[in-house]
């Protein structure tokens, strides 16, 4: 993808998307823009701003507070006026325009939820602090995603954004002059209501969605709307088949969960690609069971030329990107959350009040504020030359509600699925994990699952509460291959870091025989592998998380014991474990089970 031709194409797409969004922001939901900060992204945002002309474009900062986002009580105005004064939030200010969400992959779940509801309803329903109002907020969201390969924006948000563009490979040299002007956009807005779509074109979209395994009706509608806006941009009054093709490429391709049936030569090309990219084995997308498999009758029911048009719509080069994408999308549950401290100010069970500044994101307790102000009224009246007023509230009077939030715990399972372990214990380990999942379900804890085999460790399941997902990813866990213990521990370390940052307690459960034979760099050899593993273990131990090593080898071995020592973990030998006993052992380890 680094060749200049495709980079220019990507930029052209990005530009087109900017124009599309400028024409009808609220119709298309928006764009997930994967790009690092830099001149290209900046230029794109400037282009969008130019095309939007007088419509608003606002930045939503990462740590935006709920009251700022939604609006709410304007405290200063309320106090001075003596009656409630509401304030429009950031989202309402974006009405008819665009909200740019910076570092979308790190943004808080609350923020994502509010953005989604604004996208769905085109309005903000304010129910806060004694105010109930509806503010129109028909907007598009540009989610700036600068995450690492494993970090992604929340899937609920992705679902509501029509487009996805990756600008990582576009350099500022590949960028050419803007194709559209604000005039074009204005014309297109006028043209848009007159654009018609034929029945067969609607069928094409439905058929393509099925072929690509895109099951969300939202995506279908995005495709149709995009086609319509595209033809409005070119000034046509009827959607051309090319518009449909374009729209499918822009809206459906990145959501695809399965590949359309392609000519044989493409398939082989695919197969050849795989060994070169060990990071993306042809793994099944997570939602495989939900995925429709178009039955043979359905396929024959489709007119041939439709399928032809459909397959032609997908350029060959896209297919690789598509497999990578589908996997990434399926794997990601929520974005990483941050700001554990701030949360304590805003949610949980109220446990009293504290003096403080409400602008820092806390929730004002008006009654306690008033109560604090009352004794001083006389004095303040006397001190003020203007004479008595009904009430005088000063900054020191402000009281904030304090919340107590139970900090949830996350258990990370690290399962050895290598050849040596798989033979004996994989099924048992799976059973134990399933039993524990049932427990976590009851207590609403989160679980994450790391499996290691072959060359590297893989995060099968990022921290989640969803049993459905956990079970699914566990069931699909294959066994065999080398034992890259060191990289597994490192990955667990990274996840622990992520988990504790978001305010959870982390616990790690290793199910392994402790026999490492793949070193950190992927080379073979027991000695180095073991040394690496112990170093990694010591690192993890310094993090002070509770961990447990369950020896799954048929006879208790010193290796797993050594690992447990390095980890500062409890060691449990399970020579003939069954799932129930394993579970018991885990439950005993305080803070984990």
């Amino acid at each position: 993808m680094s060749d200049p031709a495709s980079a220019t194409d990507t930029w052209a797409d990005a530009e087109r998307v900017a124009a599309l969004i400028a024409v009808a922001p609220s119709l298309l939901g928006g764009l997930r823009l994967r790009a690092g900060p830099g001149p290209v992204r900046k230029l794109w945002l400037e282009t969008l701003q130019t095309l939007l002309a007088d419509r608003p474009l606002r930045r939503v900062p990462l740590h935006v507070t709920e009251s700022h986002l939604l609006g709410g009580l304007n405290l200063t105005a309320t106090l001075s006026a003596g009656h409630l004064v509401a304030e429009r939030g950031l989202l309402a200010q974006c009405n008819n325009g665009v909200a740019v969400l910076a570092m979308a992959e790190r943004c808080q779940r609350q923020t994502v939820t509010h953005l989604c509801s604004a996208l769905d309803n085109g309005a903000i329903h304010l129910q806060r602090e004694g105010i109930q109002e509806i503010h129109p907020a028909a907007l598009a969201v540009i989610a700036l995603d600068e995450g690492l390969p494993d970090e992604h924006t929340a899937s609920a948000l992705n679902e509501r954004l029509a487009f996805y563009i990756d600008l990582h490979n576009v350099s500022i040299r590949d960028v050419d002059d803007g194709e559209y002007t604000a005039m074009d956009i204005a014309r297109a807005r006028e043209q848009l209501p007159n654009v018609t779509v034929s029945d067969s074109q609607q069928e094409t979209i439905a058929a393509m969605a099925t072929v690509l395994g895109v099951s969300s009706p939202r995506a279908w509608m995005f495709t149709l709307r995009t086609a319509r806006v595209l033809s409005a941009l070119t000034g046509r009054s009827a959607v051309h088949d090319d518009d449909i093709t374009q729209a499918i490429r822009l809206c459906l391709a990145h959501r695809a969960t399965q590949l359309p049936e392609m000519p044989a030569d493409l398939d082989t090309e695919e197969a050849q690609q795989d060994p070169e990219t060990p990071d993306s084995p042809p793994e099944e997308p997570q939602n495989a069971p939900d995925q429709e498999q178009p039955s043979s009758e359905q396929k024959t029911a489709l007119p041939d030329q439709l399928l032809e048009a459909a397959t032609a719509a997908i350029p060959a080069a896209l297919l690789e990107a598509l497999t990578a994408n589908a996997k990434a999308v399926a794997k990601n549950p929520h974005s990483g959350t941050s700001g554990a401290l701030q949360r304590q100010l805003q949610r949980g069970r109220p446990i009293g009040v504290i003096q403080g500044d409400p602008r820092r994101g806390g929730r004002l307790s008006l009654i306690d504020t008033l109560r604090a102000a009352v004794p001083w009224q006389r004095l303040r009246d006397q001190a003020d030359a203007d004479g008595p007023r009904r009430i005088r509230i000063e900054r020191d009077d402000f009281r904030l509600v304090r919340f107590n939030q139970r900090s949830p715990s996350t258990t990370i399972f690290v399962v050895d699925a290598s050849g040596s372990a798989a033979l004996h214990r994989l099924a048992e380990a799976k059973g134990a994990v399933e039993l524990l999942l049932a427990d976590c379900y009851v207590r609403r804890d989160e679980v994450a699952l790391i499996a290691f085999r072959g060359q590297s460790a893989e995060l099968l399941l990022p921290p989640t509460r969803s049993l459905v997902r956990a079970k699914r990813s566990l069931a699909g866990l294959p066994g065999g291959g080398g034992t890259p213990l060191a990289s597994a521990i490192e990955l667990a370390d990274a996840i622990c870091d992520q988990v504790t940052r978001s305010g959870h307690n982390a616990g790690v459960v290793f199910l392994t025989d402790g026999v490492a034979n793949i070193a950190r760099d992927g080379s073979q050899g027991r000695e180095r592998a073991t040394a690496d593993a112990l170093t990694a273990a010591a690192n993890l131990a310094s993090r002070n998380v509770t961990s447990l090593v369950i020896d799954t080898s048929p006879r208790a071995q010193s290796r797993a014991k050594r690992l447990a020592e390095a980890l500062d973990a409890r060691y449990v030998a399970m020579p003939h474990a069954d799932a129930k006993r394993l579970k018991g052992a885990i439950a005993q380890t305080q803070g984990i089970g």
Partner: protein
Amino acid sequence: MTIAYPFTAIVAQDDMKQALMIAAVDQDVGGVLVMGDRGTGKSTAIRALAALLPKMDVVKGCSYQCDPEKKTAGLCAMCQGDKPVLKSVKQPLPVVDLPLGATEDRVIGSLDIEKALHAGEKAFEPGLLARAHRGFLYIDEVNLLEDHIVDALLDVAASGENVVEREGLSIRHPARFVLVGSGNPEEGELRPQLLDRFGLSVEVTTPKDISTRVEIIRLRDEFERDREAFIQKWRRKEAALRRKIETARSLVADVETPTEALEIAARVCVALGTDGLRGELTLIRAARAVAALRGEVLVTTAHVRQVAPLVLKHRLRRDPLDDAGSGVRIDRVLQEVFEAA
């Protein structure tokens, strides 16, 4: 306010529509939970239902939409103390959104801050629960609702009364509403206590066959292009359904439940091992609503069978890991029980 998509124009998703209609006929059925894939029209259906429902009589000037037909029980303090004859006005059935960011004071009600600041008066400002009285309370992404809000909801949903003891206020008012929740199971599980509060549950998935999909796209597109014309076009069907629900509502109290229907309901529940009597009661209620919707005055075993999956699916003593099984288990048990009968 944006115009809602017509209920009758929703393609497929028959289970969901059926469940919502049952809840509209008999509000005591205990709420509807809709879980499913993204973009399957969960929210659309519920907002559509709001537009469809017939108006109700309320006591004039009452801030809790009290029912003028009711005797002392079930009325708010003001209406109880009032004159013997209560004046009534027509009002649309409330369908109240509980947004995820809502604060607890807005949900259960709190001190009227404006009055407190302005007049120095201690007055209660009713919250969302009061507004939803006799109507629907809709929570999108119900599985993401914060725990302390869930606690407040559970309490009120169980007792039908909202008791406020805070900020120097001591107020109680009736709050009976149909809880409608929707969400995506991939985002997290629902708390078991909350799950239990829902009378009916439905799972929605995207339709698989192409012609249905084309139909969805076509109707939705038509709606988006000219909302008013679309509403006009569907007005007749909407009106027909509204009449059907109205008739069913007046009929449902008179629907009789013969012993054999009761027996088979009990047998199904026993065979499935559902906890408590709630499942059985809800099963009978839902079957009565279905009978009323068809204009019939006698519950048959067929009605029971029809609603059993809706009522019982989320009540099975759950093996939390057996995700696919509950539907299959119900089908099997239904087959056995009905064959034996």
